């Protein structure tokens, strides 16, 4: 028996049917066609599927689709406004903080969560907050530089 | 023309002078002079011409003084 779920994704009201065993990640990618959220492990270890769930950073592979009932979900697709990139996205590009880019959507969402919680992180705080987002290409150096620069730019803008 | 240890077994010597100005002539001369060094042994290999690795040397030419080596083709990740 599938459940009928009403939720909000990136500000849009969304309804879907889902099996009780289906993860939110599976619903997003396979039923709603929102493939910006990536799957790297399916076990909450890599962070490629990071989304904000009622403002809280979660791995979409560890949340069930049915739990989305009445929730507000934000995915990477909701970070930019039309074609205007968010500062975090701009800084990732400026600092060449991605190579293959598969971890990038998760890192963008996690960085947003970090800077909403702590607008002035130290480098060490940023490294620990983002420890749940694996990147195999960059060695994290340019990611951390992008995050610190985004934080500084956002503080100036605020 | 110099041979590494793997080819030396076929060639019976570590190096020799050959008169050839291109790959085809080189192959012909080598296989005639050293019967153990067959086309099957040589054609899968890359040719190094004065230090420049040529993975596919079929049409390669070189000078009379060139130092030549055959090496395994490098594949990589």
């Amino acid at each position: 028996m599938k459940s009928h779920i009403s939720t909000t994704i990136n500000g849009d009201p969304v309804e879907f049917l889902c099996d009780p065993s289906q993860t939110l990640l599976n619903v997003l990618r396979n039923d709603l066609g929102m493939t910006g959220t990536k799957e790297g492990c399916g076990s909450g270890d890599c962070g490629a599927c990071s989304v904000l769930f009622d403002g809280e950073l979660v791995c979409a592979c560890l949340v069930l689709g049915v739990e989305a009932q009445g929730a507000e979900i934000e995915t990477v697709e909701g970070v930019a406004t039309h074609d205007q990139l968010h500062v975090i996205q701009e800084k990732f590009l400026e600092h060449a903080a991605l190579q293959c880019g598969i971890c990038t959507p998760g890192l963008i969402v996690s960085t947003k969560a970090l800077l909403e919680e702590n607008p002035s992180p130290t480098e060490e705080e940023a490294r620990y907050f983002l420890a749940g987002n694996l990147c195999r290409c960059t060695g994290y150096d340019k990611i951390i530089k992008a995050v610190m620069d985004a934080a500084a730019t956002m503080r100036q803008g605020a | 023309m110099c041979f590494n240890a793997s080819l030396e077994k076929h060639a019976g010597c570590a190096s020799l002078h050959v008169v050839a100005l291109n790959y085809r002539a080189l192959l012909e001369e080598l296989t005639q002079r050293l019967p153990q060094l067959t086309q099957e042994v040589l054609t899968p290999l890359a040719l190094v011409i004065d230090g420049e690795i040529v993975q596919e040397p079929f049409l390669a030419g070189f000078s009379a003084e060139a130092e030549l080596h055959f090496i395994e083709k490098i594949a990589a990740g």
Partner: protein
Amino acid sequence: MSEAREFKHIGQRTIRPDGFDKVTGKANYGADLSLPGMIWGAILRSPHAHANITKLDVSRAEANPDVLAIATFEDFPSVNAAAQRDGTQRDGMMDTACNILANQKVLYHGHAVAAIAARSEAAAIAALDLIDIEYEVLRPVLSIDDAISAQAPILHETMMTQGLAEPATKASNISARMELKKGDIEAGFAAADVIVERAYDTPTVHQGYIEPHATTVVFNENGPSMIWCPTQGHFDVRARVAQLLNLELGQIKVVASEIGGGFGGKTTVYLEPVALILSRKSGRPVKMEMSRGDVFRASGPASASQSLIKVGAKMDGTITAMQATLHYEAGAFQGSPMGPGCMTVFTPYDVENLYVEGFDVVVNKPKVAAYRAPGAPQSEFAAEMAVNELAKKIGMDPIEFRLKNAAKEGTQTIYGPKLKVVGLEACLEAAKASPHYNAPIPENVGRGLAAGFWFNIGGQSSVIINLNPDGTGTIIEGSPDIGGSRASMQMMAAEILGVAPSSLNPIVADTEHVAYNQTTGGSRTTFATGMAVVEAAEDIVEQLKARAAAMWNVTAEQVDFKDGVAHNLTGEDQLTLADICASAEKTGGQISGRANINARGAGPSFAVHICDIKVDKETGKTDVVRYTAIQDAGKAIHPSYVEGQFQGGAVQGIGWALNEEYVYSKDGIMENAGFLDYRIPLASDLPEIEAIIVEVPNSFHPFGVRGVGETGIIPPLAAVGTAVAEAIGQPISSLPCSPPKILKLLMSAQ
């Protein structure tokens, strides 16, 4: 080339053309394509490391209404039992086929046995239980020592060791032996004052790309079938699938999706041929995805190794002889990177007397695949550790010791040729001058330094550049972009054409829209495909001159083209590239440039890394507190992405040295097939990775480029290993330097 040149775009830090899509989630990777009517494939995998399949009956699964197709080894027409009987089996494809779907015998935990396609992913997975399979379990062979012992079970009854002095007479788990030598090794050691001899080992590790293998395919009887997949080489996917399924190349179109990391691991096929069989049988598009566990257990990790190294030197620091015996695990089928391991092991050194012997050994683990400078990290780790120990014994600084013996232009390598101009000495000098090396070593910290060498390759690349009537254009290339190479293609073309990089859109075309390109690997893309881009752009420049000449009614020789503008040498007239494109209709139609090359002259890249490590003596835990990666790029086209290669390679090497390893039970079951237990470095594990670009131009490339992708993973193993050894005051001979192993060393010293 090599004279100093002023560049307008090369060397700048532009925004990558594919960046917008990647930071907004719009970019489509391997698992991101779904098609109408699509069904899902799932794979039944072996629970045993080594077993004969005594029964494989799919009839119950076939009867299930959700199941639309089933595939087994018998569905590979070119290599199946009938083809073997007829002697029509194609060379080299047998191992690939048997690895993708086992033939009567499973050779590692997770080895694929059969595949099912069903209406949903869940239904496909559930239907795997309906396959009736029985095994006769055999003793697994899980280490080199075990594999080469006289009592070892033989994995392949027909495998004879190649490369022995006398032809082998009986089957063996050693598939090949290689020998390389230079000078007189015994005389070399006789001339030495000090000799270090030590055995080293490294574990099985995985490339650890974050994107699992995935594919969506459509079989088409009447036109080309389509394969969508993340791969480093879609033309090679096409070739392998065509061979396995007896199809012509023209019957298959492979679309390279965006690729979520590869590092050598996405240079072969696993799911693609199986999915195409399922699609052919079901008449539906088929999608398949590997789980992370499947990726660890059944894709291609990098070889575990054992190395015996002996190095001798005089008290003045001159190395007189170096000797190595190298064993590489190939996994279940022959073909470890033992060859390049032997060729690279001592190449950073200009030494008279060298001897190297290598062995390729099969074990009951997944068939290895390439991993960044395949074979070199293992052997050069051992060599660099021994060199550092020897430098210390003699009392010489490790940089001075290396400078005294460094490979340079004219050095005779053990694999034959003399080196051309290379940048090892420049890297060592840069290391000596670096802030890191000049900083005092903090208390309780060990410092290590190591060098690395990788050949780099050239090879085949094809490029088309089309210009539009307004002067913008498209660069059509066929090298999957794994780390920002489209940015460098754009910059190189812009440099030649004298236009803004952003006016040229680089795309990685499928196998139908551009001619053959070799796989993205061997650090070849910016070098070789870049060379093709330059040639295609130069082809356009010639055409632009001819078109401008036609406009002015002069000859092409009377036209000069510079910085995007044609000049009439007989007068004052000028036409921009955009002007010429706008009038192309009048002068012969639109303008395209083209290049199909087999690039020669790849320049080797050397690197030197410095690492500071702190060890917690209570727990054995290690912390990298400072790290510097120095490498010769020849010429950095896009410095940020060059630094990114240095940093990424360094951190993969750090992971290899400190934590990563496959852990097997005594039955050969992989016990850590997930990112929680197979621990790749996290952001919180690392400091800043300082990157220093050295530029010693490669004279064979128009801009001086050397590939940079691979070398960076080589030095970290010994830089880290030496730093740990210094920190704990004991020699390190086995990787990874994981806390339990370090703690054991610390306790044994007390």
